[in-house]
């Protein structure tokens, strides 16, 4: 019997974790002599108080949705894909190549093409550790971490030696042509009469990310492939009994995962920078792990958690800009959220389960065993 009702499991536990993280962060801010309430106010107004703030929050959230979904699908097969960072970086390369070398007639076609190219590159990058895991038993955590470093070095080489325009001192590609410019939220909402900040980077990729959430929900809970992935993740021995091929499941899952991480590049590379620069991913691959943990690997949870982390990112940037709270402390606060929502899950869950048990015991004084 499940100890807690579902709503407590999916809403109450993360909420309490978040509250604990907030309290601890407040104490940290107090300890360095700043006012935590003022800090929260600043974060909220900075991230959510204007369309400019929302534009950044949603821009970050788009990144985190892609990488969060990437980690989630791998989690369902009990594979720990730490390589979102590298896969997203390679996805950036795919997007850049598609944007630079194919003469797209319209941004919408370019978006589809670039998304495919990014997904393909990300998937290919994830396929190698997946193959090593499936065939050689090399642990996927180790290999995907290593592949993050290889991806960074590879990108460095490609940018400096191959893609850098002649005469430029900047390790980055040339600017993408104007035809592949993606509409920002400002462009999209203006015809509807909604005024949205012109300078915020959130763009049409947000809709792609939301579509990806829906797609993944169908994939995991409504298709045979999702069924096999979940079976494999829950019990490898049972999956073997049922005749589900483990090599195929590992490969396909990791390639979907890598593909989703790679698709992130349509947001940061194509939508925002409009060229490929070094370290374009900026840690979004790692944040994806926290997002997936907090979102319980459920697409809806990932969606919500991604927006929360977008808020933390944008609010944190505002804090660093306007107060004397150092940037490092923002990282501490983000880390606290990750720690409480991801790693210390049981710390909240166990006492909460006990509370629900006593509540139930009080409601029914003599719990009879069910006739089964």
């Amino acid at each position, binding site marked *: 019997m499940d100890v807690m009702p579902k709503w407590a499991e999916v809403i109450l536990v993360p909420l309490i974790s978040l509250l604990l993280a907030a309290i601890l962060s407040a104490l940290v801010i107090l300890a360095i002599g700043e006012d935590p309430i003022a800090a929260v106010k600043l974060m909220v107004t900075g991230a959510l108080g204007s369309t400019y703030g929302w534009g950044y929050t949603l821009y970050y959230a788009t990144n985190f949705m892609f990488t969060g979904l990437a980690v989630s699908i791998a989690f369902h097969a009990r594979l720990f894909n730490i390589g979102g960072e590298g896969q997203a970086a390679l996805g950036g390369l795919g997007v850049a190549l598609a944007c630079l070398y194919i003469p797209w007639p319209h941004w919408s076609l370019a978006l589809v093409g670039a998304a495919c190219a990014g997904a393909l590159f990300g998937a290919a990058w994830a396929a190698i550790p997946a193959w090593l895991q499936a065939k050689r038993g090399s642990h996927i955590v180790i290999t995907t971490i290593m592949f993050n470093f290889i991806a960074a070095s590879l990108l460095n080489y490609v940018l400096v030696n191959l893609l850098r325009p002649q005469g430029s001192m900047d390790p980055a590609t040339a600017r993408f042509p104007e035809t592949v410019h993606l509409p920002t939220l400002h462009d999209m909402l203006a015809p509807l009469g909604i005024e949205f900040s012109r300078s915020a980077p959130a763009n049409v990729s947000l809709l792609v990310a939301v579509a990806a959430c829906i797609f993944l929900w169908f994939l995991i809970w409504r298709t045979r492939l999702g*069924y096999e992935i979940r*079976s494999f993740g829950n019990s490898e*021995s*049972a999956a073997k009994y049922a005749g589900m091929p483990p090599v195929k499941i590992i490969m396909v899952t990791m390639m979907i995962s890598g593909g989703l991480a790679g698709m992130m590049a349509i947001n940061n590379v194509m939508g925002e920078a409009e060229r490929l620069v070094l370290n374009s991913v900026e840690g979004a691959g790692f944040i994806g792990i926290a997002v997936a943990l907090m979102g319980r690997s459920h697409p809806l949870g990932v969606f919500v958690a991604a927006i929360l982390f977008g808020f933390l990112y944008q609010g944190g940037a505002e804090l660093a800009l306007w107060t004397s709270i150092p940037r490092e402390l923002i990282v501490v606060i983000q880390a606290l959220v990750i720690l409480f929502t991801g790693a210390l899950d049981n710390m909240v869950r166990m006492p909460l389960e006990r509370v629900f048990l006593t509540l139930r015991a009080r409601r029914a004084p003599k719990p009879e*065993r069910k006739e*089964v």
Partner: protein
Amino acid sequence: MTTAPAIELKGISKAFGPVQANKDISIRVMPGTIHGIIGENGAGKSTLMSILYGFYKADKGEIFIKGNRTQIPDSQAAIAAGIGMVFQHFKLVENFTVLENIILGAEDGRWLKPSIAKARRSLLELADDYGLSVEPDALIQDIGVGMQQRVEILKALYRQADILILDEPTGVLTPAEADQLFRILGRLRAEGKTIILITHKLREIMDITDTVSVMRRGEMTATVKTAQTSPAELAELMVGRKVLLRVDKTPATPGEVILDVQDLRVRDDKGVERLKGVSLQVRAGEVLGIAGVAGNGQSELLEVLGGYAEGTGTITVNGQPLHLSGKNADGQSRRAHGIAHVPEDRQREGLIMEFAAWENVAFGYHHDARYQSGILMNNTAIRSDTEGKMARFDVRPPDPQLAAKNFSGGNQQKIVLAREIERDPDLLLIGQPTRGVDIGAIEFIHQQIIALRDKGKAVLLVSVELDEIMALSDRIAVMFDGNIMGERLPNETDEKELGLLMAGITQ
């Protein structure tokens, strides 16, 4: 009677969350007796013994050892009170010697040598006193299961236990080894030790105990003198209603050969040969029972037949050869050949414990056309199919949304059975059909197996329960060390002969 009971429990209660595992249990065990505790899985036997051994703390109740009220907060306290426990799964260090295992946790000081010398002396005395001879310097991994159990008993005796608790001690033993164990227990009783024997086997209770307590659903339903009861009465006390202890079946009418296995060999991951050239046939309309002590190749036989272990040799089903390695040696192609498989370990293989019952009903058959609608799975169809199966196989509670882990062992097994049998397979592979299943459900499962046979299907039954093999099989093959030692007809053999074959002895 003037002597104080060796153990007296008064009003012990223990709840795990909403489940009341023990409810107001009182029991008196007199010194120098063997006291049996019998009950179905989940009746609360193990919980009660864990309380006595200090693993759990009772919510309510008192424990008296030799007349003194005793607190047992941990196993150290239990040992100090003179209680020794022999677990179902031995707690021995495989690559230590017998002696080292015996002193483990009971060393006298910083240096091992004097402890070992002392243990060697006491071991010889114990061996003398109770007829428990062992080779002190042998490694645990090199000695047989029966010997390992002896080491467990010696461990307890070395710690001066005079109350021994044995939890399902015969589960891993051949009948001959079990007899030997019972002789040892008899000797221990004669020397004044008190023994509590936990089991679900009625025969063992009848054979060796002086008194027996029956547990059902966390309560102690009766304590009786063994001499004054009968297996039928005990079974009724365990289940709460009359049960049929034997299976009603008509003689088999075997048809053509469905399964033909020739010279099957299987190696495990370490390269050890687990099946050493097994040949057997199963005909339509008959049950072939594979008897044997666990670990003699029966699991590997089922795995290779079920398509998830590789082997060499030939297997044909309905005259068509099966792939034994490579891409087509998997569960999917086996199902396509009309083979259904109820695996030995339903929790590790047959079910996904976290999945709802309806998701488990599609398990292995998720490619089936009637479970699809376009590219998506037709969850509604699977759910309604599950409702029908649950009704026909009397799965309780009949809730397709409930996760498999929340069903009792018997009901989990019924879900697997419903899934596999209703496919109307030509060949049913079934391993340990009633392991961890309550008596009431055993009856039902046995009837289903016989019903399938009577429909003219072939059944390959693997079980370590000799009674079950005898009751269901039309032919019995005995496996030992990866070989078939021989085939017997159930009405022309007895447990003694099968027991010898199971130990690898052919006359």
